[in-house]
């Protein structure tokens, strides 16, 4: 009997959507701190956009995982969504995806606990986002059934290239205008 492909299509589409949204959130996070748009956008709007993109990405992940369980093309037991290594389908790369998603939720949730864990610790925790981006890319490429297609590869290449370019720009940027804040930062005795 022919299977209903709805959930399979949904799983693939939402997986890629989550990847794109989370990449945008990472890019936004890397770029906006240096205020490339001047003061045109308030910092509140900048932070809200970063968080909203991440929340939308995590929302897409919920659709991605739910539809994988509901779909019959690959067998995905519910527990495999929470425990890395239980997926019968592409065992290792799905494990990377599960671990990455779980840590992503930790990073997202840590925002509300910033004061409790300390601003500095929160910022340190945020560094793992780079590893999570790598994990998400590896998971998408290795688990995704569309990875061989040109359009899908183009998405991954664009994402990696843009994050690499933004990171390089950000690393070089403090040497120019970002330096202005440093003496004040020390003076305030805060972070």
């Amino acid at each position, binding site marked *: 009997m022919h299977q209903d492909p709805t959930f399979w299509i949904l799983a693939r589409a939402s997986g890629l959507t989550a990847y794109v949204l989370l990449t945008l959130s990472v890019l936004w996070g890397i770029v906006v701190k240096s205020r490339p748009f001047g003061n045109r956008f308030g910092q509140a709007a900048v932070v809200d956009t970063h968080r909203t993109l991440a929340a939308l990405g995590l929302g897409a992940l919920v659709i991605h995982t739910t539809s994988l369980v509901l779909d019959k093309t690959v067998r995905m037991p519910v527990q495999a969504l929470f425990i890395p290594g239980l997926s019968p389908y592409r065992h290792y790369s799905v494990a990377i995806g599960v671990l990455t998603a779980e840590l992503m939720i930790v990073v997202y949730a840590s925002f509300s606990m910033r004061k409790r864990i*300390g601003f500095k610790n929160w910022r340190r925790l945020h560094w793992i986002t780079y590893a999570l981006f790598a994990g998400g890319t590896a998971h998408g490429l290795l688990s995704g059934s569309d990875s061989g297609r040109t359009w899908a590869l183009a998405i991954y290449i664009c994402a990696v290239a843009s994050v690499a370019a933004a990171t390089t720009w950000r690393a070089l940027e403090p040497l120019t205008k970002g330096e202005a804040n440093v003496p004040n930062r020390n003076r*305030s005795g805060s972070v």
Partner: protein
Amino acid sequence: MFRIEIDRDLCSGFASCVQDAPEIFELDTSGKATLRVTETDDERALGAAASCPMNAIAVFDLDTGDLVA
């Protein structure tokens, strides 16, 4: 006694803190809040932390180390 911290990356210069407790907070030349004192017994620090729209001010009890605002 309280210990105060500001997350300057998040501070947007709304200056609510400066209005609430000008003895503790001021805006620097980059328009962000900075601390005049890092420790104080002035309870207005608590109000300032509560009024910060970015939630960028943390106040700790110096004796217990507990987060109080």
